[in-house]
């Protein structure tokens, strides 16, 4: 599983952080989401896919 984020779209809604805090974070010194781990372990798949689905601007892409 590989995560790609469209940083041009990200508006810091924070839904991904609520769904998968192991993978996504909003940090005060950044204007877009920080991906903590762009190749997360398989057991986080459900959370990551939920984060992608919940993103209001569809900025998260999960590959394979």
């Amino acid at each position: 599983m590989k995560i790609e984020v469209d940083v041009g779209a990200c508006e810091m809604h924070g839904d991904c952080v609520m769904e998968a805090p192991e993978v996504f974070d909003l940090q005060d010194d950044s204007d877009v989401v920080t991906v903590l781990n762009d190749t997360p372990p398989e057991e986080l798949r459900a959370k990551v896919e939920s984060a992608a689905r919940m993103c209001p601007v569809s900025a998260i892409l999960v590959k394979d």
Partner: protein
Amino acid sequence: MTVTSIDVFDPAVYAAGNPNTYGLPLDAYEFIRDEKPCYLHEFHDPALIDRAWVISRNEDIWRVDRDSELYAADRGYVNAWKVTPIDPTMGGMPAMLTMDGAKHKEQRGVMAKGFTPAFVRELEEKFRGYAATVVDRALEKGTINFVQEIGHAMPMEALGDVLGVPHEDRPKFFGWVDTFAAPFDTRITPSFDNVMVAIGELLVYAGDLAELKRKHPGDDVLSRIVAAADVISEDEILGNVALLASGAAESTRTALSHGMHSLLRNPDQMAWLRERASDIPNTAIQEIVRIASPFTHLVRTATATHELHGQTIEEGDIVLMLFTAGNFDPRVFDDPRGFDLAREKNPHVSFGRGPHQCLGKHVATLEMKILLEELLQRTRSIEQAGEVSYIRDNYSRGVFELPITITAA
């Protein structure tokens, strides 16, 4: 009255709402979703827009809300009201909710930093303090109107902190919002003149507050806004303050009030929540937000002529997302009329689901969680002490009165 003749935008329908269906015309919504999922509603009221395409199915609302290219927010109107303080096409001041694209992203970015999950978590202790005070006062009185004494008091203080409104100004600040947010309820807003006066006073105050924040910045959203003068103009400061005020306290009060009423109507759910009062699960908060649907709708403008459910929506037509109908759609909810605090699959649209979704959702959910934890842990019983009654409005889903009696644990 048959379901086919109910006007789901008549303020009287909500004023006389059935307490057994969350105060909502759920049968009429069902008819609309099933029989005319995209229909042109004519309003016939000088205070309201002329007409709008009404979208009522949950999945359609998700789609419209997320497609800001086809359904724009920056071409006038916020809801079915002709006048709002943040609509520049009708004399209001520009704000995030009436912008799209890069401009929206830029401004939202400034404010979003004051609302991130991590930032909000740091407020938890302060919120617990407010919740304790609110519950103390309620216990002293014993029998209260939940809406005012608890539902109103908690968000006013919590949002006052987040936004940076000085303590002594909070009652008047949120009072103006109550006045312009209930233009059809003469108990709150005697005439439309009051609406215009309240909007004017709020905007003047917003200017004074911006001045104060420039001189004495704090760790709050208003200070962030005035510090971002390169991307937020003077008029946009006023508009955004009005927007934040409008979205802040009233909606949380409404959600808490409908939530409490539903708990009183469903003793099994109240018992379930009491068992979990030391750490209320998120599913419970989301279910309360779903059934409350604090705002019935918002509108967008079509940017191109297109078809939806066999209807032709022309460029420039207004498209209305009826959130209250989408939140009870059996296409996506199991037992949509049931109140189920453990509901796992809950794609409600109360906060919106697109780029304009509620900026304060993380604050609101935390506030509600903390307040309910405090209230349930410190009371032995909560009983309804009179009839529930609702605000007369077709947009704000406020509860007017919910009398309760609480007994200390």
